[in-house]
């Protein structure tokens, strides 16, 4: 090896090490900073009470509750839709069909659409079109569903997270050995019996992983709910599908940009960000744990 390459090599290696160090440092700084400023503000009071005094004091309970309600509604919508799509694509559609290629392309593109576009779409489609139609048809034109509401925010979020669920479910379906399907068929199972008795039970873990990843993504997004249902400040919790709600991410956004006294809201802001971060980490961690358990089990099966 010549001297020149030796020096060049050493230089490149140190640059790569530096790049890695930068990434680690960034994460450490972000989390450290949030922990440092936010941990002190976290208390039972903070988690269980509504914001007070122009959001400079009190807690964030309505935002936590709203976020939870949002992701539960979103899950109810996205899991059946996503699982049905994946099962159709993997188990029913002919293998080399052009139609399925098109659907797959659409799903990949859906995953690349910016969140704010989903927000605008949800506003125009769900509130202004679907909601207004419901009001005209059922409420004699009275404004009930034709305005931002938690149900519309949840459906918009469901569209955003749909690719996650479809991809995770399809991956789970692909991991099921073809021989299981053949064994079930050979015992006289119809396709639907085979899917219900063999495929779906085996795919449960993968579907669950997809669901958790969707929830984790959904609980951190702000843009899709901005126009479709999230409220600036609401002391009341949402109780009906057409109520508005507070959301953690949106609450952070509001406190950062719209607060009357930015300095005074800062401690609350940091603590809210910390709660949001913990929630997302926890969900991601759960998803990873479930997925690795499934992978281990699959390895044992082979």
């Amino acid at each position: 090896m010549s001297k020149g390459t030796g020096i060049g090599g050493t230089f490149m290696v140190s640059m790569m090490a530096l790049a890695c160090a930068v990434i680690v440092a960034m994460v450490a700084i972000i989390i450290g900073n949030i922990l440092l400023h936010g941990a002190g503000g976290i208390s039972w009071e903070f988690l269980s009470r509504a914001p007070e005094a122009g959001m400079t004091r009190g807690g964030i309970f309505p935002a936590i509750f709203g976020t939870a309600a949002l992701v539960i509604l979103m899950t109810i919508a996205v899991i059946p839709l996503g699982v049905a799509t994946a099962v159709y694509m993997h188990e029913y559609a002919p293998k080399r069909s052009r139609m399925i290629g098109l659907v797959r392309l659409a799903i990949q593109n859906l995953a690349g659409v910016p969140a704010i576009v989903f927000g605008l779409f949800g506003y125009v489609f769900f509130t202004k079109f679907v909601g207004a139609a419901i009001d005209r048809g059922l409420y004699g034109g009275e404004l009930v569903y034709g305005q931002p509401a938690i149900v519309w925010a949840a459906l918009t979020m469901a569209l955003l997270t749909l690719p996650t669920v479809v991809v995770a479910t399809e991956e789970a379906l692909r991991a099921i050995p073809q021989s299981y399907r053949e064994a079930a068929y050979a015992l006289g199972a119809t396709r639907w019996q085979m899917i219900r008795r063999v495929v779906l039970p085996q795919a449960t873990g993968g579907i669950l992983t997809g669901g958790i990843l969707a929830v984790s993504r959904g609980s951190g997004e702000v843009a899709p709910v901005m126009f479709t249902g999230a409220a600036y400040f609401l002391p009341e919790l949402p109780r009906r599908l057409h109520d508005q709600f507070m959301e953690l991410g949106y609450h952070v956004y509001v406190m950062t940009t719209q607060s009357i006294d930015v300095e005074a809201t800062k401690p609350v802001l940091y603590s809210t960000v910390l709660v949001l971060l913990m929630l997302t980490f926890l969900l991601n961690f759960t998803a990873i744990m479930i997925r690795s358990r499934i992978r281990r089990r699959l390895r044992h099966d082979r």
Partner: protein
Amino acid sequence: MIDEPQNARPGEKAEEDGSIRSEALQVRHAGRQILKGITLAARRGEILSIIGPAGAGKTTFLRCLNRMLELDTAFEITGDVLLGGRSIYSRDMPVAEVRRRVGMVFSIPVPLPLTVYGNLAFGPSLGGATRDSWDEKIEAALRAAHLWDEVKDRLQEPARNLSGGQQQRLCLARALVLRPSVLLLDEPCSGLDPVSTARIEEALQQLKKDVTVILVTNNVKQAARASDRTAFFLFGELIEVDRTESLFTTPRDRRTADYISGRFG
């Protein structure tokens, strides 16, 4: 498809004789002819084995007999298969029904990811049979597969816990629970040790009085020792079929002689 008017009406009697016959069965895959018109029959009371080198179409043929081949839509099947005189490809024979009557055991044991009992109950649970008749049928099937003594206390264990040979006998029992007329075995002993192989062969000898058995095997010796008649396939053609002793002692075709004496394949 060939329709036989005298058997068009579903008649239990006709199906009970357990005969299965392929007529001019042809299979094409991506423009390539895999089976070139096979006409071959098997009857109850005998084990018919099918031998031949790799690529002869043995497995393809077997998978036509319970309509498993069509799961891959790239295969084009023409000709017909008659079970007890009725076409299994006719419109009034549901495909699930065909597969319940014509059981199959694969070359690798495939226990479903369930308990031993769950595997055995899978077939009956798909419909038809009432729950209280299951246990009796399951025990009978396990005895017939020579597995009862080994698993009678392990029915609630995952089927994966069984040894390879036990798993394959479980798969045999699982097919037998449905009381099929015909049993197809696709190299059922290819991954098994001689003891497990012997157990399966013993079970088959006792089964053949109730079930028509068709055994595809790569092991010429297995065909010689376990079957009553043997068919030799080569490149998608049926070269000859005869009583096993005759085929192994005085083959009529030169290619059969070459294959069984190990000169090719």
